[in-house]
């Protein structure tokens, strides 16, 4: 089947644009992929909402459980909706994403780390005001 917008003479070793599937395999198969992703994402969302309010998970570990479910759901979105795969035609897309994730981690965990230390070593606010008198 000839796909619109995809070059006809692409060899199997060419890169693929993010969001495109290399071998879509017909309209039915493409739709099925989205439906599987949608079902998995819905399942993970429902689990997140359930866990947040139930006593199923030990209360102090709820944020960790929610983070794990969120990361899993982002993975489902990346694979089934954005068609990011580990294949050789996706190396460029994966490397750009990996670099982005590195910066995101540095930003979020770096900020939290530094700011909790600053909070910890700062005097309480009323003590600062006392000393300025």
């Amino acid at each position, binding site marked *: 089947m000839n*796909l*619109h*917008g*995809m070059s006809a003479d692409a060899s199997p070793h060419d890169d693929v644009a993010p969001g495109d599937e290399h071998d879509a395999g017909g*309209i039915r198969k493409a739709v099925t992929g989205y439906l599987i992703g*949608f079902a998995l994402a819905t399942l993970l*969302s429902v689990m997140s909402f359930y866990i947040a309010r139930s006593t199923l998970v030990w209360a102090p570990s709820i944020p960790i459980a929610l983070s794990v479910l969120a990361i899993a759901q982002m993975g489902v979105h990346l694979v089934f909706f954005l068609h990011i795969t580990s294949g050789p035609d996706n190396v460029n897309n994966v490397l750009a994403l990996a670099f*982005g994730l590195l910066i995101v981690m540095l*930003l979020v965990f770096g900020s939290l780390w530094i700011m909790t230390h600053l909070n910890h070593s700062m005097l309480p606010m009323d003590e600062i005001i006392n000393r300025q008198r």
Partner: protein
Amino acid sequence: MSATMASTMPKHDGNRPLAQNITDPHAHAAAKRVVVGYGFWIFLISDIIMFAAFFATYAVLTDATAGGPRGRDLFELHTVAIETACLLTSSLFCGLAGIGAQYGNRRLFHCAMVATFVLGATFLGLEIHEFTGLIEAGAGPDRSAFLSAFFALIGCHGLHVTAGLLWLLTMMAQVVAKGFRDDVLRRILCFGLFWHTLDIIWVALFSLVYLVGISQ
């Protein structure tokens, strides 16, 4: 030993680099669709990094409530659940619209785009309703550093959704006016990437802002 090595190793004359593309006269540039999609992917990743900065600000300021309300006093989970359902389903329809465009199926494309728009607009309406409710209750962005960071983070996502809805209508109009031309198809690819990325960011927001906020 050396004889078996010589027979199994590929022949290499030492004057040409091993990497094929450097000297291969038939190596061709990537298709325009790949170049455009990749460029837009880089933009989206920098957008994600910007959201990470807003998110880090929020994470640092969650306890800076200045004696005001905390997340668990403010967040309504059923609104967030409906918002999540809207955005997730709209992502599915956006994907179907992309398939419709790829296979030149106008009816599938337009129906799926309309569904995406309705669900995205519902999401946006619920978010505006939530924001006005908070401001009327005296929990606006000027109440505390926590609420400033909250409004900045969620509001930034809402602005992205607004821009996405305008882009969606533009793409429907372009398909009506120009048909599934190559340049229009590239724009539809980029729009799909944008919309799916907004959904991925929303996953982080509903999990780590609303659900963690309400469970603490």
